[in-house]
Each structure stands twice: as structure tokens, then as C-alpha cells.
């Protein structure tokens, strides 16, 4: 706030204000001054060490040489064409979405550069480089088309609907591309692509399940309440790792062995580990989503329900049109927090032998003799990838909160 008002003032005033701010906040008294100096020295030292590592002592060739393993794990050579349509679709949709729903501020622009520059640097040669450039170009085009006012106001509604449909279609398209025409064995899906896939499945599936659980836990039917409370308490009381291990060892004993030939190529007939893990993540996350949503349901004033009832709306419509929209709005920050959590938890599937990003990274340091001891570089890169996605989710949530007017009522 201070910085903003200062920025609007003329230069002379700015320096005076900056000086006053510094005096008031950083150098007010001996103790305060000492604290400022010590903190600055420590920050400068830490920053210097990090920069020195990143730009001088680190040898990033380990990432360059293993980018394939990190991003797609052991995905078979020659099958990469299955991945690109998804990447193109998501890039274009991301550009369109940002352009239509929000302006990209300087912070977001820096973030975008942080995402795009390293990504491009790692793919900047050969066919992969060209395809990556195409994906980036699609994102920028999408952004430009919707942001610069090229779209007539009349078409904004339909374009919004198209974008929503696009996002809904993205997941089936992804799965179809992975499985159709021969398909790739799900046990070979891996790398960061697998983390994102698991997170998306987990989010998309656990959200409706969680909402249903929350509704039934607040329902007036005791049977619904009992079942949903039991479910929630059960899944919240067990560590995720335990659930994942059970999905690995125990779940197969409970599953019927369908021998439907249609499912065979997808590995669905024997319920491949990846699918079991998807189920485990979904069931686990749904319990948390349910409790978050329940909090929102309880926050909706009783008068809202009564007004809707008095209008003659049915229970289903009251929930869908009046109660849930308000409840979800109220808990959006917590909900996104849970989804970010779920996304990061996808790294735990390495426990059950799936080669997701973190495990791929560990495998490099342990298995490739020429890169032994390069754990810092690898872990830093892994952390950066996770951070980029998690931070984007957090920003998107803030934009959403803003456009939904949370806290302005």
C-alpha cells in the first residue's frame, strides 16, 4: 500500500516518502537498526550463495541430458505424438483463459517468463524444440486474441463457453490419446506428465465426490449422514502413503478380474497400478474436500435456504443454484489449498514404484554414474517444476476470488 501511494507521487516526494518509510520501519531505534542490518546481511549471504550455486558451481547438463526422463519417464520412444495434442490444447486454453478472465500483471509476466524461458531452453533444439515453440506460440496467440479486444463483445460469451468445453474435454482427449490406436502401457507413463495427470484426475474426480459427501453429511437423512461421516473419518484418519500402499498390495484382491477385451490395451482389465493410484488419491482427497465444502455449507445463512424454499424451488435446485454456489465461493481459497496439496502429494506415488518426477530425479543421481553427486541440481529443478505449477494454481485462485468478489460483500 505504501509502495503504491509512493509510486504515484512525484519523484521528489517519492524519495522523501521512501526515506521516511525506511526510517519509520527499518531504522527506528538501535534494536530495530541492528535487526535490519543483521537480516540484510543474512539475506544477502543466502542470496549470494544461491546465485553462486545456480550460475557458477551447478552443472545443469544433468537436466539437459535427462529432460526426457524427467518430463515423461519411461514413455516409449516413438510414441511422443500421443502427448503433444494435449500439450497444444492445454497451452492454447491457458492463453485464452488468462486473456479472457484476467490481465497479466507484471508479477504474472515474470512468472510466465520463469516458466517459458527454462522450458524453452531445455527443448530448444531439434523437433522437440519446434513443437515446444509451437505450444508457446499457441498460448501467446490465445492470450493476444482474447486480451487485445480483437474479439467482438458479441462473441465473448460463446468463446467463454468454448473455453470451458475445451477444459472439460482436455482430460478425455489426454486419456484417449494415451490409450487409442495401440496405446501405451500405463505402467510406462511417467515423469512430470504423470504428476500432472494424477493431479488432474484427483482434482476432477475428488471435487464432485467431496461435494456429494459434504451434502450428504449435512443432509437430514441419518443414513446419508452416517455413511458420509464414516467415510470421511476413515480416510482422514489414515496416512496417504498407507492408502497408496494398500492400493498397490491390497486392492487387487478385492477387484473382479474383468476380461473385457475392449479394455485390454488400456490395462483396465487388470486394473493397472496407475488406475489404482488414481482411485486412492481421489478417495483420499475427497474426504478433505468434503470437510472444506461442509464448512462452506454451514456458512450459508439459514435465511437463504428459507427464501429458496418459500419460492417453491426443489431441494436439488436449492442446493445447485443457491447453497452450493455461495458455499464454494466462501471456501475457494481452502479448496485450492487442498488441490495444491494433492498436486504435491502426487510425488508420493514414487513409493509404489511409479516413476513420477521426483523418483525419476532420484533415479538419475543413483543410476547414472556420470551424474552421481548431482542431487542438488536435480532436486532444485524438480522443486522448480512443482513450484511453477503450484504457484500458478495459487495465482489463478486469487484471480478467481477477485472476479467472484469474495470479501467484498
Amino acid at each position, binding site marked *: 500500500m505504501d509502495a503504491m501511494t509512493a509510486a504515484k507521487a512525484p519523484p521528489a516526494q517519492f524519495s522523501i516518502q521512501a526515506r521516511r518509510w525506511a526510517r519509520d520501519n527499518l531504522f527506528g531505534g538501535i534494536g530495530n537498526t541492528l535487526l535490519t542490518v543483521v537480516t540484510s546481511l543474512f539475506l544477502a549471504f543466502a542470496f549470494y550463495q544461491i546465485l553462486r550455486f545456480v550460475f557458477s558451481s551447478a552443472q545443469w547438463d544433468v537436466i539437459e541430458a535427462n529432460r526426457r526422463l524427467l518430463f515423461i519417464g519411461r514413455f516409449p520412444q516413438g510414441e511422443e505424438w500421443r502427448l503433444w495434442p494435449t500439450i497444444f490444447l492445454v497451452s492454447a486454453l491457458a492463453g485464452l483463459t488468462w486473456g479472457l478472465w484476467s490481465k497479466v500483471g507484471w508479477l504474472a509476466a515474470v512468472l510466465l517468463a520463469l516458466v517459458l524461458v527454462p522450458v524453452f531452453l531445455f527443448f530448444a533444439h531439434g523437433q522437440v524444440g519446434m513443437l515446444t515453440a509451437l505450444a508457446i506460440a499457441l498460448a501467446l496467440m490465445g492470450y493476444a486474441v482474447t486480451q487485445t479486444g480483437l474479439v467482438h463483445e458479441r462473441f465473448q460469451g460463446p468463446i467463454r463457453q468454448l473455453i470451458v468445453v475445451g477444459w472439460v474435454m482436455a482430460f478425455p482427449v489426454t486419456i484417449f490419446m494415451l490409450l487409442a490406436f495401440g496405446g501405451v502401457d500405463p505402467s510406462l507413463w511417467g515423469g512430470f506428465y504423470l504428476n500432472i495427470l494424477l493431479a488432474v484426475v484427483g482434482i476432477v474426480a475428488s471435487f464432485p465426490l467431496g461435494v456429494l459427501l459434504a451434502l450428504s453429511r449435512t443432509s437430514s437423512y441419518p443414513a446419508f449422514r452416517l455413511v458420509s461421516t464414516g467415510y470421511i473419518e476413515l480416510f482422514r484418519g489414515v496416512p496417504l502413503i498407507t492408502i497408496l500402499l494398500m492400493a498397490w498390495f491390497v486392492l487387487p484382491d478385492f477387484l473382479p478380474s474383468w476380461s473385457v477385451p475392449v479394455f485390454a490395451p488400456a490395462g483396465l482389465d487388470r486394473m493397472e497400478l496407475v488406475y489404482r493410484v488414481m482411485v486412492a488419491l481421489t478417495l483420499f482427497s475427497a474426504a478433505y474436500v468434503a470437510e472444506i465444502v461442509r464448512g462452506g455449507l454451514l456458512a450459508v445463512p439459514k435465511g437463504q435456504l428459507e427464501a429458496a424454499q*418459500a*419460492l417453491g424451488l426443489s431441494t436439488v435446485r436449492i442446493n445447485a443454484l443457491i447453497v452450493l454456489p455461495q458455499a464454494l465461493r466462501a471456501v475457494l481459497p481452502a479448496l485450492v489449498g487442498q488441490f495444491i496439496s494433492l498436486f504435491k502429494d502426487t510425488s508420493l506415488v514414487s513409493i509404489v514404484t511409479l516413476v513420477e518426477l521426483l523418483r525419476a530425479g532420484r533415479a538419475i543421481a543413483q543410476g547414472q554414474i556420470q551424474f552421481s553427486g548431482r542431487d542438488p541440481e536435480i532436486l532444485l529443478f524438480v522443486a522448480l517444476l512443482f513450484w511453477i505449477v503450484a504457484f500458478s494454481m495459487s495465482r489463478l485462485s486469487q484471480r478467481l476470488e477477485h472476479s467472484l468478489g469474495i470479501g467484498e460483500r
Partner: protein
Amino acid sequence: MTSTAGGRDIIICEGVKKWFGDFQALRGITTTVAEGEVVVVFGPSGSGKSTFIRTLNRLEEHDEGRIVIDGVELNENLRNLEKVRSEVGMVFQQFNLFPHLTVRRNITLALTNVRHLRKAEADALAEQLLNRVGIPEQVDKYPAQLSGGQQQRVAIARALAMQPKIMLFDEPTSALDPEMIKEVLDVMTQLAHEGMTMIVITHEMGFAREVADRFLFFDDGMIVEEGTPEHFFEDPQEERTKLFLSQIL
């Protein structure tokens, strides 16, 4: 009780009783309301007047007695309930507008989802109703952007959209700043003059005296006294009525 409006009985209550746990909120309410009649209900807080009108569209279920609204008895039958609710409009003390929807959508929501009107028809009706309550220019705003008086008028328009035969008002001006009370009462007065059947809980006695055909004085979960406004202002019979009137007038 013969009503001054003289229509057929659209609301019939016989021995309506209601408990909240051990507390008996209604101790046997028997009354009828004729079509076109305006009934003002008043009494001390906790006297059951609010519970009473909330039983009329089954926001509270009564435990004993009969309630018949426009020939339909209120009971477990959900089909009856839907029919009654779409014919009985209700206006609340706290407005209870839907904060996440525009004024237009607040009014059209039930039209498109209960009456199954087309969007264009519903929109036209919404604008017409906002005209009627005197705030056509607020159609695209959100409730939080309106003053209390405007919000309550939107709430009235929302209830009227369903073209109800009966309107229930539960202390519609109690949550309003004094300068906004009149604008809401004016709309209600106009409605009464147009022949709407109304049951109004209010302590705005000037308004009540002007529009009411009949007063019901509630105390301790019972109708203690009922009669015309003149009866109450000139010749109240019960001690409790006299005491209460002396406190609010």
C-alpha cells in the same frame, strides 16, 4: 369471524399447535383469512406470530391441527407443498436476497426453474415488477449494491414474480433504517389496494391501521384478541392487549 373483504376463505387454520422441543410455540391457532383480506399480526416477541406465518408455507411444520391453503391441506405430501409454496409469496425481515445473483436473476430464478418460463419472458416480467416497486434502474446490480429499502423492494418483487395468491410479510421493515421504511410500506400499501391477500407481521401501526381489514394480537402462542383496527384503537378488551398497545403506541 366474518371478514370485511368478503371473499371465500383462502386460508383455514384449525387448532394449529407447534412445539420446539419442550417449548410450545403455538397453542392452538384457529382462524380463517378471506381472499383479498389484509391481516396484520402483532404481539410481543416470542409470542409465536412469526412461527405462525411460517407454518402457512410450511417453513415450520405444525405438529397438530389443520392448515388448508386455497383448498390444499398442508401435510407430508410434497406435491401439495410445492403447489402451496408457489402460490404463497414470503418477504423476510432480513430480505434474504441471493447475494451471488443479480437483482434480475433473483427475480427470475423461480420463474425459470419452477414455472419453466423462457428467459426472455422471465426477464420481461422482472423488469415489469421492478417498475412496480419503483426501482427499474437497479436490474443489473447485485443485492449488496442496494440500500436496505431497495433490497426489501426487490424481495417483494421476487415474491410477486410467482404471481402468488397470498403474500406473507415477516416484519418486513424491522431491519430497515427509519428513512427507508416508508418506501417499503408504500409498495405494500399499493399491493393491499390492488386486492392481494396479505398477512403482515408489523408494529408500524400507522400503516397497519390504514391497510388492515383485521388485526390479530398474539401473545404466548395464542390469538389473544382479534378485530378491526377501529376495535383495537378505540376499544381493546383484553388487559394484555391494552398493555402492549400502550407500550408500542
